[in-house]
């Protein structure tokens, strides 16, 4: 019994001593700042910074070659934390969040054919450009919702994607996965958007969507600096977003929405406070 205990214990002790010595001899220099930065990052490994995961970005920042404000999901707090660790000035780029430029759910927009297939927007798009008649509208099958690492996207019961401006961290994964390119990045503070992505003429748009933009120019006449009409589609000039609110009631198809008074119909998100309070529950 004693022999057993002593032998195993002895082997363990010798092994531990050998490992301890080796740990000293073969120690690898790891910049402590790199570990501190890794702690400060959100840890979602989304790749928005352009580096392989949070570890890759932490390493690059610790080497001192790149800017600390590439982590969009981390937000201003992360940029400040990293800047403090590295001992440099923090300059935050203006935060951007994603918005789905479409309000055409199943009740408001028509379908060209009945789609019975994989519930995936990219799969549906491959078949005659998707079941929705509108060429630019949201297909509502949830590919963006599945791509979002932060749970900021919800699908309304009528098949429309809606992105929470508070939960969105600006990682742009949804923008990349959408086959219709109906999701665009917008400044966080801009709450008014033209929710339409179709460049068809007004008459054609009216045939397939009740809330599509018909390029009637009323918004531009109401707030000339805040709107731009291009290829039969109006859009908000975001630097002047503050003046865009005036045209919301004037729009005949009601395709312009002021998000501070609520998200598109069917969404369960509460209207964002202005200025938008970020909720980075990464």
């Amino acid at each position, binding site marked *: 019994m004693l*022999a*057993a205990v002593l*032998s*195993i214990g*002895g*082997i*363990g002790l010798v*092994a*531990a001593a*050998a*490992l301890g010595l*080796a*740990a000293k001899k*073969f*120690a*690898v220099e790891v910049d402590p700042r790199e570990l501190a930065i890794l702690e400060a990052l959100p840890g979602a490994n989304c790749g928005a910074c352009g580096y392989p995961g949070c570890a890759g970005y932490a390493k690059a920042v610790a080497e001192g070659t790149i800017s600390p404000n590439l982590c969009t999901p981390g937000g201003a707090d992360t940029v400040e934390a990293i800047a403090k660790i590295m001992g440099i000035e923090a300059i935050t780029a203006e935060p951007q969040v994603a918005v789905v430029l479409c309000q055409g759910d199943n009740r408001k927009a028509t379908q060209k054919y009945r789609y019975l297939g994989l519930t995936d927007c990219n799969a549906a798009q491959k078949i005659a450009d998707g079941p929705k008649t509108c060429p630019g509208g949201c297909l509502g099958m949830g590919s963006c919702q599945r791509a979002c690492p932060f749970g900021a996207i919800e699908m309304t019961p009528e098949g429309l994607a809606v992105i929470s401006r508070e939960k969105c961290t600006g990682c742009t994964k949804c923008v990349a996965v959408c086959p219709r390119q109906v999701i665009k990045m917008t400044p966080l503070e801009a709450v008014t958007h033209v929710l339409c992505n179709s460049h068809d003429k007004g008459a054609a748009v009216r045939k397939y969507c009740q809330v599509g933009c018909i390029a009637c120019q009323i918004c531009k006449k109401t707030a000339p600096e805040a709107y731009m009409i291009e290829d039969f589609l109006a859009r908000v000039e975001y630097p002047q977003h503050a003046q865009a609110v005036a045209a919301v009631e004037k729009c005949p198809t009601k395709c312009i929405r002021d998000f501070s008074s609520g998200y598109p119909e069917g969404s369960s998100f509460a209207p964002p406070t202005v200025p938008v309070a970020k909720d980075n529950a990464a």
Partner: protein
Amino acid sequence: MVELLVILISAVFVNNFVLARFLGICPFLGVSKKVETAIGMGMAVIFVLTVASVVTWFIQYLVLIPFGIEYLQTIAFILVIASLVQLVEMVIQKTSPVLYQSLGIFLPLITTNCAVLGVAVLNIQKSYSFIESVVFSLGAGLGFTLAMVLFAGLRERLELCPVPQSFRGTAIALVTAGLLSLAFMGFAGLVKG
């Protein structure tokens, strides 16, 4: 001398640890996507196998048998092997960061790799002398490396082939491993036992 050669040939070809004894399948399938990582892993395994069997041989004949505690063989061997793999991990991290990045999580796999424990235990079961057990474990390591490198070469070529959709990835890899194992059966009967 001839016996040592027989042991070597047997361990590398006839009773190849991966393809004939089916030990160490985890790293075999896990690290064999590229030939370079396969060679690196093979080198690590040869080192661990040889040193592990040397140390475990001594433990068996100098500690376990004299004190009559042979029943502690498994746990003592595992203890030694685990420490050795930790040591190998540290050495690789220092000397070749590139290899460390590519092997990464697979280094601990060698610890729970049945091939390493298998060699250690087989040495005792076959009552090999010290030199014989060194040669046997060297052969086991070489055979393991040979199997992995061959398999990695095959897998690299499979990447470029039109594999049917349902077979892509692990499925075709396992089928190929089986065929490779069949091929190595051609060596059966080369040496006795």
